[in-house]
């Protein structure tokens, strides 16, 4: 196994590819030999990221569209697959959050977050899975928040999405592993939320990208439906040592 080119010849779709995590993942994937299509809402962001991607690998593409609209997602996926030829890696890195609890978050806030985080993950998966099944190979990496397993005041909306994405990931694996389609998720601490400090210092987007690389390549072949916390051990510290 060539660890320097872990994704040689693979085709990857990265949602939210113009955002900080998505960009780091796309860049690392491209440097490991994957053809990458980044899908995002932010058109200028796509242009900048794509320019950097093309310097690494000529087989990269970028498409802009609304990630909260089911039809637009299908269109984006079709464009990406036409460009790449196929897709055997999907990274759901698109996401957003609004701080607030069940009372202060409005109906629209909740719907906005659920659409952007959870529904986009489900819709992209739905659109790409048939291609993966045809290929008898697929690696899905969902980036979620570590609020899936630990709670923090004022994060009601994003925590609900994070837990749902983790459960959805396990179930996708359950349903499609017979086609050798794996799904795993990575939990990452949100930026800018006060109250919790990672024990090892704050992980960067490169650390998430490394975990996403590991989940997409053969190194993690036997690991399916799992969640890897890239959060500096935050979940395991329950209080002061006294």
């Amino acid at each position, binding site marked *: 196994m060539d*660890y320097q080119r872990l994704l040689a010849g693979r085709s990857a779709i990265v949602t939210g590819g113009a955002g900080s995590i998505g960009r780091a993942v796309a860049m690392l994937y491209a440097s490991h030999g994957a053809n990458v299509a980044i899908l995002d809402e932010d058109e200028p962001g796509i242009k900048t990221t794509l320019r950097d991607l093309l310097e690494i690998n000529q087989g990269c593409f970028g498409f802009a569209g609304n990630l909260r609209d089911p039809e637009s997602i299908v269109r984006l996926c079709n464009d990406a697959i036409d460009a790449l030829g196929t897709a055997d890696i999907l990274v759901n890195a698109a996401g957003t959050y609004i701080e607030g609890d069940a009372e202060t978050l409005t109906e629209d806030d909740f719907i906005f977050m659920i659409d952007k985080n959870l529904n986009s993950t489900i819709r992209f998966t739905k659109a790409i899975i048939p291609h993966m099944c045809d290929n008898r190979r697929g690696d899905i990496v969902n980036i979620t928040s570590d609020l899936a397993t630990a709670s923090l005041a004022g994060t009601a909306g994003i925590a609900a999405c994070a837990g749902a994405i983790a459960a959805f990931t396990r179930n996708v694996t359950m349903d499609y592993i017979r086609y050798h389609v794996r799904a795993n998720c990575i939990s990452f601490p949100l930026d800018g939320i006060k109250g919790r400090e990672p024990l090892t210092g704050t*992980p960067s987007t490169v650390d998430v990208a490394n975990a996403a690389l590991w989940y997409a390549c053969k190194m993690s072949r*036997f690991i399916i439906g799992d969640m890897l916390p890239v959060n500096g051990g935050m979940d395991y510290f329950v209080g002061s040592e006294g």
Partner: protein
Amino acid sequence: MKYNRLLEGKVAVITSGAHGMGKHVSVAYARHGAVCIINGRNPSGVETGEMLNEISPGSCFIRCDMSKREDVESFIRQVLERTDRVDNVTNVVGINQSDLTDQVVDERFEYTQQVNLYGIIRLARGFWPALQETRGNVVLISTIHSGPTYGKNSAYASSKSATNAFARALAVEGAQYGIRGNVVCPGGIYSGFMREMYFKFKDDPEKLLQLGIRGQFGHPDYGSGSSNDIANACLFLASDMAKHVTGATIMSDGGATFQSHEFRDIRIPPDYMELWGKFMQDRYEL
């Protein structure tokens, strides 16, 4: 980051690194540039030590019985005499003595705890100052039986569950020194004996079932795992790829645990445990 030399310039200590899964782990580490100091009970581990030395000069085998406190302490001393740094401790050693809970004798229960749990506690204690200096990490091989399990497994399951908890506590304590601790929980992996049996009887499904080999150990629709899968998980955790992963428990089981209902329903052939116990005894005689 040089992804094909993930452990360049590092020194790794691998328990039971001479045979089976441990050998795959130490070879992977050595190929990625780490000097590997392996231990084991069987003196034939010297051959693996020599092989590792060829891949990564400075690697060696040191004889050590992980069930004995004096042996472990002398091993730690010998390692620290040989090298001025330790970046990683990977605990592969493990034993499963299958006893029914109402029949287990103290000596056998204690022996399991000594090998599976006390061994790594002593190693972590002994190498702690060295790991502090290098901001190193500890990788523990546990098992899916630290979660769901089946019968005749009380000593093994409890020791491994404690291993997982130990890793989390180590992660919390070690964080201030940059020491990370993580766990890999393999599902059924074909290594050594099981692999041999599989290839010997692969055309005889009944015999395979008798041996407890269902053809695959992960999800029924997926394949089975190999020692290399575990080696790659350890490599990831030991390297800077997982710089901010600590206290994590990675299930490398091909999905055996998340389909927990089916897993609980697995019928164990009557002589499976006897055969398995014999195999384990061959390697770790009391």
